[in-house]
């Protein structure tokens, strides 16, 4: 279930292409949407609705290749609108700036669908840059996920790397560009994965990510 699969500003996700074009390492089952549809599907999921209506998918081919895209008629105006199922993931994993000890999570910056993803999901894991005693002085309308809506909170400093955490460290755009070369061929991807992931535990990432965050301070 996706609406865009690329390396932003760089190009293709080569491993995704290899899977779709060549079925390697195996075939993928895909449900393709537009961003507007995904945003509405998460919103409806957070709102406890079974489906979302919006003005979209007019004239294009996506509705022809995705049987989940249907039409509903507004009973007041007669306008035909798109209707799609609400998105209710089993698990949402997001990264945020901070949580307090009770588990209230505060998010600031580019919000995306992070709040909706947590609210729409059956289970959720939130990694944060830091766990604090009390949330800092904040806007009266700050974006906060109250503790009883969050499954698990884990402190992982630098946990967004190679992306960024607003107010902590910037996006490592260099790595996104390097990833293009690493992931282009199966061999180079395998070698990188073996060296950096498969033969190491999560502590290796934790150490590495923390170092990158520190460097930005």
């Amino acid at each position, binding site marked *: 279930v996706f609406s865009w699969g690329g390396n932003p*500003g760089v190009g293709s996700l080569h491993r995704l*292409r290899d899977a779709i074009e060549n079925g390697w390492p195996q075939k993928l089952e895909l449900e393709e949407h537009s961003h507007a549809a995904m*945003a509405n599907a998460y919103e409806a999921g957070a709102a406890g609705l079974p489906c979302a209506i919006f003005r*979209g998918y007019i004239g294009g*081919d996506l509705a022809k290749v995705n049987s989940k895209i249907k039409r509903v008629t507004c009973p007041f105006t007669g306008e035909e609108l798109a209707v799609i199922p609400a998105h209710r993931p089993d698990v949402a994993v997001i990264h945020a700036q901070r949580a307090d000890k009770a588990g209230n999570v505060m998010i600031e910056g580019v919000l995306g669908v992070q709040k909706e993803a947590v609210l729409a999901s059956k289970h959720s894991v939130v990694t944060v840059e830091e766990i604090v005693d009390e949330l800092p002085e904040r806007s009266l309308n700050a974006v906060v996920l109250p503790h009883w809506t969050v499954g698990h909170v884990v402190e992982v400093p630098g946990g967004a790397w190679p992306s960024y955490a607003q107010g902590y460290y910037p996006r490592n755009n260099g790595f996104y560009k390097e990833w293009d070369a690493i992931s282009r061929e199966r061999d180079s991807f395998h070698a990188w994965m073996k060296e950096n992931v498969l033969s190491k535990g999560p502590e290796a990432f934790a150490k590495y990510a923390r170092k990158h965050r520190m460097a930005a301070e």
Partner: protein
Amino acid sequence: MADYKPNEMMTVAAARALKNDDVCFVGIGQPSAACNLARLTHAPNITLIYESGTLATKPNILPLSIGDGELCETALTTVSVPEMFRYWLQGGRIKVGFLGGAQIDRFANLNTTVVGPYDKPKVRLPGGGGAPEIATSCGEIFIIMAQGKRSFVDKLDFVTSIGHVSGGDSRAKLGVKTKGPTKLITDLALFEPDPQTKEMTVLSIHPGVTREQIQENSGWPIKFAAKVAETPPPTQRELEVLRELHSRTNRAHAEAA
């Protein structure tokens, strides 16, 4: 006259199409460069919106991704993505949407999904992203794309987002009330839709480019307007601002992983 590349001419021509009071939905890459060039030259008050939720942003460097922190820090405010697509895009609050694509046809329909059949594609492209609804919800659409036989095609492999559909009033017949693609800016020329047929038609050719070049780099017989102008070349200032923007951006993105 300064020396410049076709790509720079394309960005400058696109920037000129924007006005100071425009509200623009900006895509990453060429559109982002054009919109920010406009903001840094003749349109200082232009409102730029990125689909990540940043309203009225004024980035000092071009973002690599739609969600770069730079966009958020320099914005009037940042809203959630569901709000962006519901209140802002679908709400009809965006005047100009900027799109690009891997393939375009004569009616400015776009393909950013697949080359080849959908189920067994030769090339799987990243996909539609915001394009399907940007194409129908923005007041009008500007398209910026470099020309070539593989991208300017007679028939799209997949219609990701509609332009003028099959021409004439076929777009309006789908119930779409917005104008659709009003400008197509390439590295060779500026196209606008014919008022009747809606086929994209060359209105202005960039300096030094021939009609033959435009035709050679297209997969259908290109229409030229009765009067075809020559695009004014980039001014010294336009080139300076654009090159400074790109070099600031490259410096910022070059940090090692």
